[in-house]
């Protein structure tokens, strides 16, 4: 077992626990960055997709995992970021300006949504955002002159310093672009969590009254959380647009919103790891299913038929199992496994036991 002796305040402020942990993350980063040489184009594309979902997950994690505001409508912000990015590029703005701007604009859109939503709690906020996501679909159709309506839009690659970055023509470059965005967002997120603002998010999540009594302006904090969350989600949306190439109003349906929320729940709410772990599940589940279908077909004869809804059915079942047996998600399970190894053979089953609490009415707010 590794025991960290704390001799300096900086040890708690630094993002890594000790040099061992730092080394492990750096090795992981090097391996991922080398993926274009390790994987074929198909799997590199899948990995890119996972990273984009992870960025979107980080966006939602800020709002739902750390500020406790459940959103069932983040697909609306994915769409906003995607369209903002493409429309800016079509207007002749270079990608390196259009892309950050798309996120910032989405953040501003998030603030305009947050202000009327400030009074809403729990399920009311969930249904509010869900309605937004449904409306976004219709709004994109109605705003046809700008968005292309049902026909949608198409965007080939983008140019960065004269290099073509395109999902199909230059998948390696596109992968690195996504990886760089993911790294920047993650680092910003880590910094946020070790600074007063990130802590005030957690304070609002866990107890609004005492956050207020500590001098945290709840309305302002929630609005900021919406802004940051939507900005990151907007970047993910812009990358999704580049990844998909062609997209229309149905690309960002309310189902995507639900999927995104489920993803971070499976990964583990309230942790950065959770967004990545959830994205891996959502990204590789379809591959896994099609491979196992082929395997089943080969083993038992018969042909591989498409079963509609299978992916969602399985996904739903996985989620139910997680909520029932591991509410802290995959990251929570990982923490337990790690502790088991570190403490072997002294791990006790009740070490992570949560306090049983009785439901108090949420009608009293």
């Amino acid at each position, binding site marked *: 077992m590794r025991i960290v002796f704390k001799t300096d305040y900086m040890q708690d402020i630094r993002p890594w626990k000790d040099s061992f942990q730092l080394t492990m993350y750096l090795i992981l980063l090097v391996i991922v960055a080398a993926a274009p040489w390790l994987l074929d184009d198909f799997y590199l594309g899948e990995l890119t997709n996972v990273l984009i979902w992870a960025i979107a997950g980080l966006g939602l994690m800020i709002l739902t995992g750390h500020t406790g505001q*459940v959103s069932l409508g983040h697909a609306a912000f994915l769409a906003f970021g995607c369209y903002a990015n493409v429309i800016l590029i079509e207007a002749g703005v270079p990608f390196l300006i259009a892309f950050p701007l798309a996120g910032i604009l989405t953040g501003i859109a998030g603030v305009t949504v947050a202000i*009327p*939503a400030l*009074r*809403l709690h*729990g*399920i*009311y906020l*969930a*249904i*509010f955002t*869900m*309605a*937004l996501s*449904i*409306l976004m679909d*219709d709004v994109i*159709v*109605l705003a046809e002159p700008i968005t292309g309506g049902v026909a949608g839009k198409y965007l080939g690659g983008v140019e960065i310093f004269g290099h073509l970055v395109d999902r199909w023509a230059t998948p390696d470059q596109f992968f690195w672009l996504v990886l760089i965005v993911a790294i920047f967002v993650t680092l910003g997120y880590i910094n946020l969590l070790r600074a007063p603002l990130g802590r005030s998010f957690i304070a609002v999540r866990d107890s609004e*009254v005492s956050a207020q009594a500590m001098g945290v302006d709840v309305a302002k904090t929630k609005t900021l959380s919406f802004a940051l969350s939507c900005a990151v989600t907007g970047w993910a949306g812009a990358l999704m647009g580049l990844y998909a190439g062609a997209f229309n109003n149905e690309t960002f349906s*309310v189902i995507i919103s*639900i999927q995104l*929320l*489920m993803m971070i*729940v499976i990964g583990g709410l309230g942790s950065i790891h959770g967004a990545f772990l959830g994205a891996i599940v959502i990204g590789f589940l379809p591959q896994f299913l099609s491979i196992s279908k082929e395997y089943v077909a080969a083993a038992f004869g018969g042909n591989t038929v498409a*079963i*509609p*809804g*299978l992916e*969602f*059915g*399985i*996904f*739903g*079942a996985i*989620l*139910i199992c997680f*909520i*029932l047996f591991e*509410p802290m998600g995959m990251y929570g399970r990982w923490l337990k496994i790690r502790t088991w190894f570190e403490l072997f053979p002294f791990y006790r089953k009740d070490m992570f036991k949560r306090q*049983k*609490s*009785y*439901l*108090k*009415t*949420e*009608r*009293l*707010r």
Partner: protein
Amino acid sequence: MDNAQLLISGLANGCVYGLIALGFVLIYKATEAVNFAQGDFMMLGAFVTIGLTNTEYMGLPFWLALPISLGIMGALGYLLDRLIIRRLFGESQTAVVILTIALGFVIRFVAGLIWGHEPQTLQNPLAGKEVRFGGLVLGMEDVAVIVVTILLTWGLYVFFSKTRLGLAMQGASQNQLAAYYMGIPVKRVQGIIWALAGVVAGIAGILFAAKGSVDPTTGLLGIKAFAAAVIGGFGSLPGALAGGLIVGVIEPFASRYIAAGYSQIAPYALLLAVLIFRPNGLFSQVRVKKV
């Protein structure tokens, strides 16, 4: 006359929304949980009845199939609580919301496996019959929907506000621990409520399938019904029905009088407006938390 016809068909649709919303509110009232899968429950109820009555499946007589399928739905509701929801006792509302959304996915998948993805209609004795009412032509199904919905809402309302068990259920939701101390069997009450919600979903499903066709994605109608429940104010049974009727009536009128493309926005726009200006619905139950 034309408007009257629109109104009637809107009311009939609204009743179905209201019935699903009733299921939401029932569960919310007694357990403070929100069942996002209520729409899929309704779809399941429709398919179970179709599976029992339609000639291509079991072909039982309609009036025999009716109690059986309601029994099945009640049992499913009870089992769901027993096996899954009860384990979340004391967890946050959000966990239950996410769980039931996932459950909806699973139900849709299973229904698709069993009954396929083609739209199907319930064969029923009311099919094709009409009632003429001073120039208005009403389908018997529409009349049945409206009558059944009103009776059911009234019955549930009386149950909750007048009977001992109903009051006990309300008490159980507001403070589980206190309810325990008062000798209310909280867990059993929850089971009964989920069974009841299953039966209500079954009724909604049967009425819906008699009026039109169902397929596994019909359950997504639940989103609209959820909007109805919020508009009416969560926690009020007559409110749920009123919300359902509002949404049901708005739809045909919006598509008649507002430009295409804008009309389907109407119910959601109304929902947003209600949430912004009267966040607790038109029949509020929310008070301020004491610290």
